[in-house]
């Protein structure tokens, strides 16, 4: 009996702790002053990520092919930044060490080794020291002067760049941010565990992948949202649900867009298409864009134009998330799908359409044509009985 009572008390305390932790999520982690981070007191001469390669070949290879490694040279980024003539892009695409700028503070730019993008130093370097996990405590002779530090796992290492568009704020509204067994932060999904040697002289062991799988990783991208379809006469039912991420879908950049499209064949054999909806956080200068589904539970109707083949009526519903349904929405016109939420549609197609294909298309920037997009999900349906 006493044991039962004790367990009950512990359970209550854990629940209270979790609730308090969750409720206080808006205030972020306690401030870690730059001055509190460790230093080695020994000179460190490493200047480029390639200097890390001799000891950390496998980690280096993961990073070099990641979007962090390609942050400056990525052709899409080069185009959108006009070859980085737009200099405001540099602080996040070629940042100085975040532990030096300050965890959670806006990043600052470096002007050299640009081709290394978000380099090893961006997350690990603190003056004469490279910050790492607890396993590096024994590596006293390494030229990078490694020091174990909790800072390397702190999500405020990510926020300087990845919270510019409130990704971390959106995550804080989800169940993934609740302390406990279901807790997952940035690293939980974007630095999955891998078995490989961290250095050339050590055996393989569990470490964190430096590939940073996200929207450039097809498997991650496809798992971000699901799509279900159904047919009832000429009415096509569609549900798109963000059931694979801990943040809005699509996330982060305002460039990202996901389009729900219906491609259809007409009775005369021609192929027509129309966009049913677009999920995206608009640029601030897109003054005319309006979100028809501002609040969970909202419903709206509009027309999808198939040109000469006719027009379809669309009835859309914003389905609230089961967890914390009334989330803080930072941008009024944002049509991204928050984690756990769904969009349901009933699309009544014109008589002339026969076979239809419903597609969920991911676009790295909103100006891309459908043919240039990445296909996430597709469903072929026969309409009209």
């Amino acid at each position, binding site marked *: 009996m006493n044991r039962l009572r004790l367990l009950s008390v512990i359970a209550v305390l854990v629940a209270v702790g979790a609730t308090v932790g969750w409720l206080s999520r808006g205030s972020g982690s306690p401030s870690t*002053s*730059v*001055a509190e981070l460790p230093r080695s007191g020994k000179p460190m001469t490493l200047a480029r990520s390639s200097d890390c390669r001799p000891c950390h070949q496998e980690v280096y290879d993961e990073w070099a092919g990641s979007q962090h490694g390609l942050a*400056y*040279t990525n*052709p899409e980024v*080069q*185009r959108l930044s*006009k*070859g*980085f*003539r737009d200099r*405001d892009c540099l*602080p996040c695409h070629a940042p*100085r060490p975040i532990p*030096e*700028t*300050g965890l959670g*503070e*806006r*990043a*600052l*730019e*470096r*002007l*050299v*080794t*640009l*081709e290394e993008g978000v380099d090893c130093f961006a997350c690990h370097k603190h003056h004469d020291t490279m910050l790492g996990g607890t396993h590096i405590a024994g590596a006293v002779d390494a030229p990078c002067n490694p020091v174990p530090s909790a800072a390397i796992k702190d999500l405020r290492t990510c926020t300087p760049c990845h*919270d*510019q568009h409130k990704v971390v704020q959106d995550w804080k509204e989800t169940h993934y941010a609740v302390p406990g067994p279901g807790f997952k932060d940035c690293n939980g999904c974007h630095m999955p565990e891998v078995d490989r040697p961290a250095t050339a002289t050590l055996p393989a062991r569990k470490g964190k992948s430096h590939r940073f799988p996200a929207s450039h990783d097809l498997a991650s991208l496809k798992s971000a949202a699901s799509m279900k379809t159904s047919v009832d006469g000429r009415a096509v039912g569609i549900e798109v649900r963000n059931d694979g991420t801990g943040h809005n879908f699509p996330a982060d950049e305002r460039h990202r867009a996901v389009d729900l499209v219906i491609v259809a064949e007409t009775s005369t054999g021609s192929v027509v298409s129309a966009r049913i909806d677009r999920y995206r956080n608009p640029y*601030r*200068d897109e*003054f*005319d864009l309006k979100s028809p589904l501002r609040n969970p539970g909202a419903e709206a109707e509009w027309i999808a134009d198939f040109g000469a083949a006719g027009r379809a009526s669309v009835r859309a519903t914003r389905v609230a998330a089961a967890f914390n349904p009334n989330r803080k929405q*930072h*941008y*009024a*016109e944002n049509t991204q799908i928050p984690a756990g939420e769904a969009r349901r549609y009933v699309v009544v197609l014109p008589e002339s359409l026969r076979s239809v294909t419903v597609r969920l298309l991911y676009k790295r920037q909103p100006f891309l044509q459908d043919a240039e997009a990445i296909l996430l999900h597709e469903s072929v349906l026969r309409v009209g009985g």
Partner: protein
Amino acid sequence: MKASCVSVAKRWAVAALLVAACSTPPPPEAPSPHAIDAALLARLTDPGVASPERIERILAEGRPGNVAAIPTLRAVLSDKSQTAFVLVPSKTAAWGLVVAENPSALPVERGPERAMAVIALESIGSWRALADVLHAIDDRDGLTAVHAARAALRFGSRAGIPRLITALERKAYESETANRMLVDMSGVDFGFDADIGMQAKAEAVAKWRAWWKDRAKDPKPLVGEGPAYRMGLDPILDERIRTEVDIVGQFQFLFMEQSRRMLARLGAAALPFVEEGLVRAADKPTWRAGLAQALAGMDLPEARAILRRLAKDPFPSVRSRSVEALVAVEGEEGVSVFADALRDSDPSIPLAALRAAGSARRNDVLVVLEAARFTVKELEEASKVARFRIRRDSRDVAAMMEQVANGLPGGRAAALEALAEVYGVVLPDDATVDDRVRAAFLDEVRVRSAQENPPPGR
């Protein structure tokens, strides 16, 4: 029994008095001077009346001394194109205001009403609206922007005059208004008219540009130019400016950029606030770097004095931004800053100095540049680009072409930019990544360089 009843009644009376005393509402607190009057805002933006009626209501608030209406008129004026943020009164905030995303809750198509809000703010005649009109110079609505430029002049700031000259090249309603304002404030007329034809208009605009190049240096007030603001003249505006100094060190880069620009426009009046901010930013390099950028936007010796200090900041990005601003300024000081920067142990600082020297075409740094030896490849490439931009010697073109072909990514981009600048060829956005686009651009450069040897001093 009777006594007992009296006693009970007394006790109830005392209790009732106590309850009454406790439930008496406290005296009402004075509203924040930054607070919007919700009822007034509803009247000024009432969708139930036609726009001319809303405009009449807005203009009616423009009574001299009606400072209480300023926060509400600010809400009418607010637009994401000039302020992506709004400032919300807060008792706990250091300066009484916190930053929030501009919700754009009001209809966005209200340009004429925003312009009238500026006129009303100008008519109230208080410096308290100075920060608002300085932001509104960037409004996407041309009429709002030109009215903001004139209002700024009334409040002692000339920061909007370049915007008025730019407006001459825009649509008639904007250009005619801007021309009238320029004629009124200058007392001169260069014959600009929206209907006089492209050539004559371009000539008139060129004359206005030439006029401003000289007149900007003359401290004699323009017609309608009010006295400049100084810290302490309006404690409410001081709180607002301090908040914007803080925004420069906060997180959202568009907010930072808009506040930086407002502070740069505020010019000398902003300097004591920036100095205060630098003290608060002692352990925040991002904030100091942002303030350095705001100072770089001021063409003032006092701002350069602060930048000289920041050029020795322990954090490299603060140094590089300060050095870049100082090297761009004519005079002996720029040369010595350039020479010091080349010796900095962090390669970003000499790189910023080389970029600024090239951009400003500083012939006077060439001696220092020729004597310098660079061991870092980025610096070697940056020095070649700087030399080419300064000397514009066609013998350097081959080196630039070689750098485009085989340089580091940053060096390639810099060489492309230099060739575009020197030969006046438009550099396509994707020139760094699209081989065909880049080849076409370089072909055009080759044609021009063959025709013009040495290249012209564009």
